[in-house]
């Protein structure tokens, strides 16, 4: 009985492998753009798409309206050697990142192109749209992939990053993924000026099913403008926790970040206390970062916070409490009062270069 089961499984697996191995992968990357260029995390999605299979033709899907969309399409066409096509959906319906029209668009493009994979970055944009599109296509998506082991096998963190789960996708095409951008760093690519890049074509929107479009409307986006680097892609991140005690004191963190050319992060406690806006939150429910240097001041190191930063290359923790869990993941720890340590750091740190 058991042997028959194994045989059955083996033959299933064999069928399964051959059907995918013989066919090369074709991947649709859902990309975000802003001000005429592709957002950096979306380039990570292209890098991830490239690691799905050696023989993979990557198509980038861009949607929006106006000249900035066309500019972004030009950039997409030359952003990576593996990009074989750029698809552009130019319509006012995509002027804002509303899930309803975007999910329909992904469904439409998938039905025409028959891609084996659909990939987006697991930011708020991808997480909002991709599962909806997957439901329309009746497949299970895989969230927050950190490692790709072949066309159907992926590793993703579960339980706030306290376990890594390897999953195999056994469903029908397409296999839909959101990938964690910090796990797929974009290498500096020298753009060959002689190449014209991949062809750009317009998506025919005449068959776009508009049933559920128009039942949601974009009103506004409110954000804090800063000159500091983006939290998700910064090389250095300086984070403050509850121990900063006030929004006024939090400015010390900002000063230190400025001196280091770093982005500012915060714990949930600091956000809830109103020291900083919520988009600075690092953790399971905020942003996931993996900078070269992560400096945590007055951060205890709750599981949910660690989930957002423990893949950083070098972690520095400054905390009064020598037993704080943050010291278990810190490469360099300093037990002391941050109100003394930060001013001293500000005084003694070398000026940042360039």
């Amino acid at each position, binding site marked *: 009985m058991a042997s028959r089961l194994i045989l059955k499984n083996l033959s299933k697996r064999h069928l399964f492998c051959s059907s995918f191995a013989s066919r090369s992968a074709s991947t649709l990357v859902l990309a975000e753009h802003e001000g005429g260029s592709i957002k950096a995390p979306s380039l990570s999605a292209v890098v991830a798409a490239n690691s799905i299979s050696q023989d993979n033709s990557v198509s980038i899907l861009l949607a929006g309206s106006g000249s900035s969309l066309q500019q972004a399409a030009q950039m997409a066409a030359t952003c990576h050697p593996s990009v074989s096509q750029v698809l552009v959906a130019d319509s006012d319906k995509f002027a804002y990142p509303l*899930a309803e029209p975007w999910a329909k668009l992904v469904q439409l493009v998938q039905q025409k192109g028959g891609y084996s994979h659909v990939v987006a970055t697991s930011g708020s944009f991808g997480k909002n749209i991709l*599962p*909806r599109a997957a*439901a329309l296509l009746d497949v299970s998506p895989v*969230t927050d992939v950190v490692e790709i082991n072949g066309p159907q096998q992926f590793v993703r963190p579960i339980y706030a990053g306290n376990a890594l789960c390897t999953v195999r996708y056994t469903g029908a095409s397409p296999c839909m993924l959101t990938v964690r951008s910090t796990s797929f760093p974009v290498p500096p690519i020298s753009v060959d000026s002689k190449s014209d890049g991949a062809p750009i074509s317009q998506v025919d929107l005449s068959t776009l099913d508009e*049933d559920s479009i128009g039942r*949601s409307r974009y009103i*506004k986006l409110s954000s804090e403008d800063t000159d500091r680097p983006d939290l998700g892609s910064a090389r250095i991140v300086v984070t403050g926790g509850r121990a900063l005690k006030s929004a006024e004191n939090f400015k010390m963190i900002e000063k230190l970040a400025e001196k280091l050319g770093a982005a500012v992060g915060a714990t*949930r406690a600091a956000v809830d206390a109103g020291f900083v806006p919520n988009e600075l939150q690092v953790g399971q429910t905020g942003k996931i970062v993996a900078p070269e240097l992560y400096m945590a001041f007055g951060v205890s190191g709750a599981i949910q916070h660690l989930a957002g930063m423990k893949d950083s290359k070098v972690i520095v923790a400054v905390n009064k409490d020598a037993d704080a869990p943050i010291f278990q993941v810190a*490469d360099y720890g300093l037990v002391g009062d941050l109100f003394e340590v930060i001013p001293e750091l500000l005084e003694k740190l070398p000026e940042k270069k360039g």
Partner: protein
Amino acid sequence: MKIMVAVKRVVDYAVRIRVKPDKSGVETQNVKMSMNPFCEIALEEALKIKEAGLAKEVVAVTMGPANCVDTLRTGLAMGADRGIHVEAARELVPLTVAKVLKRLVEVENPGLLILGKQAIDDDCNQTGQMIAGLLGWPQGTFASKVVLDKEKQVATVDREVDGGLETICLDLPAVITTDLRLNQPRYATLPNIMKAKSKPIKKYTSEELNVEIKSDLEIVQVTEPPKRKAGVILSSVDELIDKLKNEAHVI
């Protein structure tokens, strides 16, 4: 209007989880289980809407093995009017949960569906978006503020997005998924816990709802994340700057 809230029973957020030695999953036997924190927020929001006179009834729904009823009772003790338990022996993927929810929406006809933005066990962040897609309803994910307009039949939702806060307006019926900052969930009081014992819970099986329980994802293995090498405790700021400069080469 009726509001339906989906709640999930998960390993308590404060528990330090252990990966099983055979790598088949995470140890869930004899571990404290609770309602997923985002589901508590979803239920709280539904109760607030009802208390503001904008909804008549709040129905809590859960899916899974028999002990999920405990989670439902917690929801009833918080103030939900009644519960629905869809029995399923094995773990359900978000796509299946969304399909079951779709069937329940067809039976119950709620005007609003509220879910947490993600469950803290599988960290998927998919179910709300999937059910919205299946129903063809608009979705307001990662909500940190919800304002209902009963006359116009719309919900204005502030969403926590990467760049800040986005405000959108949804025609009802709609699906909303909750972020952490939406509200502070209430505690169930002892009298309410007692009262919850007599509130009705309707049971369904997946067969009765005509949804096939299947998964197109197979768990190959679950492992511990790589351990970080032990760090050092330094004694001064000078030493820290020296290490960062000359050992780690990061500044």
